[in-house]
């Protein structure tokens, strides 16, 4: 089979905004199948035009409903929307249950909406990289909007902050108790804050609490707005859409967008390099065997891990070439 020709068709399909080709390209990237580097590289050069918005928050905050409502709002303006929903992979089985579509009834049959559920897998490079690559494929389809939904736990939301232009943190009155105690992370990455289910008891209190926490965020030019929504009734969605756009404009006018982009490219290239080095070392260079040899000695208390690493690093300097496409 001529893989190359196949990828031409696929890449063309993605660029034409065909969902099936897009879906397949994402699978190739997720599965680390042959051709992924070629696909990513060519789609990367096709340029980016989308506004990438990350939506994160604790489970039960109504994120999927909010995404549903926001996407409907974009569709009303005739903008195409790509949605990537990220959920954790089970560390025990490697499987995942991806249930975000349940709450997206409004948009699941809209031909102008592409939804992809993605498990963290965590094979390499962290979620930041995998998600960024999936997002870049969706962007290449020419959708005006890309929304990335993630559950706000652990490392995931920090990774998403890396990948998105604007991060919307969604909270609900029930999450009020723990704002102060909540991981600094969630409160620090938000560019826009949303109190969803704002008709519930405690919404006002939460609002005040968020604002007081945000007041401690000093030395930043952007002061994140705190909005209220009732996503299930579409309330506050317009304001949210506006806040996202305002933030995006600020990114451009302040130069912050440029800075973030530069940072992102640098860390992406570094990741790719690290990855290639690691693959070259452990998988192709046969250094896993060398590590195994040292392992016995370290276990026996005759060698320390630093010396073992030093040996591997020195030896690896003799690696002549690295294969970038680490298929």
């Amino acid at each position, binding site marked *: 089979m001529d893989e190359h020709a196949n990828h031409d068709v696929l890449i063309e399909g993605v660029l034409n905004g065909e969902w099936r080709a897009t879906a397949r390209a994402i699978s190739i990237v997720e599965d680390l199948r042959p051709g992924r580097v070629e696909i990513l590289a060519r789609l990367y050069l096709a340029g980016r035009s989308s506004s990438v918005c990350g939506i994160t928050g604790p489970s*039960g905050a109504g994120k999927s409903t909010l995404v549903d409502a926001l996407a409907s709002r974009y569709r009303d303006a005739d903008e195409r929307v790509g949605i990537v929903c990220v*959920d954790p992979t089970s560390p025990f089985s490697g499987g995942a*249950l991806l*249930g*975000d579509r*349940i*709450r997206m*009834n409004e948009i699941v049959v809209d031909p102008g909406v592409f939804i992809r559920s993605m498990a963290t897998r965590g094979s390499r490079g962290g979620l930041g990289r995998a998600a960024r690559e999936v997002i870049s494929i969706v962007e290449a389809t020419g959708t005006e909007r890309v929304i990335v939904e993630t559950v706000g736990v652990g490392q995931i939301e920090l990774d998403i902050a890396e990948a998105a232009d604007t991060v919307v943190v969604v909270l609900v009155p*029930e999450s009020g108790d723990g704002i102060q105690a909540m991981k600094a992370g969630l409160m620090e990455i938000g560019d826009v804050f949303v109190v969803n289910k704002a008709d519930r008891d405690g919404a006002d209190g939460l609002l005040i609490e968020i604002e007081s926490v945000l007041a401690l965020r000093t030395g930043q030019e952007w002061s994140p707005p705190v909005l209220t929504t009732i996503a299930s009734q579409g309330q506050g969605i317009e304001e949210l859409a506006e806040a996202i756009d305002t933030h995006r404009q600020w990114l451009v006018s302040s130069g912050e967008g440029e800075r973030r982009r530069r940072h992102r490219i640098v860390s992406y290239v570094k990741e790719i390099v690290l990855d290639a080095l690691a693959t070259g070392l452990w998988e192709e260079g046969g250094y896993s065997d060398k590590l195994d040899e040292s392992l016995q000695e370290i276990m026996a208390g005759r060698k320390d891990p630093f010396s073992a690493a030093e040996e591997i690093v020195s030896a690896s300097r003799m690696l002549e070439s690295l294969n970038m496409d680490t298929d």
Partner: protein
Amino acid sequence: MVNKEQGQGMSGKSDIRKDEERWHEEVKDLAEIRERFITTSSEEIDPLYTPTSLDGFDYLRDLGFPGEYPYTRGVYKNMYRGRMWTMRMFAGFGTAEDTNERFKYLLEHGQTGLSTAFDLPTLYGYDSDAPDSIGEVGRCGVAVSSLEDMEILFDGITLDQVSTSMTINGPAAIVLAFYAAMAEKQGIALDKLSGTTQNDILKEYIAQKEFIFPPAPSMRLITDTVEFCAHDMPRWHPISISGYHIREAGSTAVQELAFTLADGFAYVEDALERGLDIDEFAPRLSFFFNAHNDFFEEIAKYRAARRIYARRMKEKYRAKNPRSLLMRFHTQTAGCSLTAQQPENNIVRVTIQALAGVLGGTQSLHTNSMDETLALPSDKAAKVALRTQQIIAHESGVVNTIDPLAGSYFIESLTDKMESEAEEYFERIEKLGGVIPAIEKGFFQQEIARAAYRYQKEFDSDERVIVGVNRFVEEDEKIEIPILEITEEMHERQVTRLRALRERRDEDGVKEALAEVRRVCSGTENVMPFLIEAAKAYCTLGEIVDVMREVFGTYREPSMF
């Protein structure tokens, strides 16, 4: 012969405890045939129960006498010696004519109450000719799209002579209005009607998932029916708070018990908030439980349910009328326990389950037909199921004495354990903000899904044996049960009738009645009288629900993973 008094006096608790320890010591090294001995709900059971299992047990406080607080031993003083349970077989399929025929057949064979199953479109408030109804009309029950269908369904049945149960939830208020309108048109006063509407939306969100509107307006509709019945249909049970479906969805017995009671208390609180007096409506609340395979676990569940309910109604809600404290319930044998393989074995399962329901003191009973995992029950299978109840009632002798298992160390300690585990669940639900917030957070759904998955894993690993399915299997089994078929012709007949009705009726009257329904739904007036008017104007179910959907909105399940 041992003197009774002497027998009690001679062995004190400490003697028993000492002997018991010795006994445990002696048996602990004996080989056992299984690693764990678990109930249907995966609860481990001890090898032996003795008086020491009942520390702190107080007969008068914990059991009392039948028909007396806390009603553990039964809600009536003489129970089945005074009146047998109602043998109520759930029936419904195809068009109203088809089910009407089945109703008459069951009444002729000695059934004493009717129970109506509606098809899925009706349960979701769609007319039979709606696009969403395609493929579903008449399949899981009878299609009722208008008062006309209701009139055909009960044709030749005297409404004030029969008690009618209707399994309907989302659109229950409307279907109840159809029934009331039919009675009024026949000149039968509403206060002569007896029966039950299931009308339990909370368990729909929790387990059965046939919901239409969001929780708040759904609760309002239910409380409207509660209020209406309290005033105008005093012999009607407006809600049957149902654990049946919670169990079918895979819950444990304790979850069934706890979630159902929590739902019940939520309805009570909603009605109290409306300003109703507890003793005005509580006597008409009824319950509906599952009867699964694990005989003792089920019996303990019913007994615990009665006791928890009576205690709460008295202590928390301050009910004064003793009738407000009675948990009366209907029981249905567990559909999910039946097997498609060797279906005749289901007759035996149903017998054990029905017996548990009876020993648990049920007020009415539906016994499943052996062919229900294959399709809707055939006449023959439904008759065998009814005969099963009759044999228990008349041949087994279990009705001779009230609550015969009371005092069993095992049954009483199991009853206590279920009560305390249910109380733990009540606390967790309370912490989540109550039943509706817990639903919206997916709490019940996740608890149930977890229990269902555990049960499946026990089955997959053969720890849990199901006869004919993973043990005692017959290879190349051919199933020889005649299966009732729902034909396309039934669907066509129904759609044709509905379209003819739309042609025939007075359109102005329909519009006017629907506008009234819209107005009342947007306000706070009780919607029931207006629904009855809409029914009489032959507004269809779908038309009324459409209006309500516009006012109330729709509900979507929370994502649960």
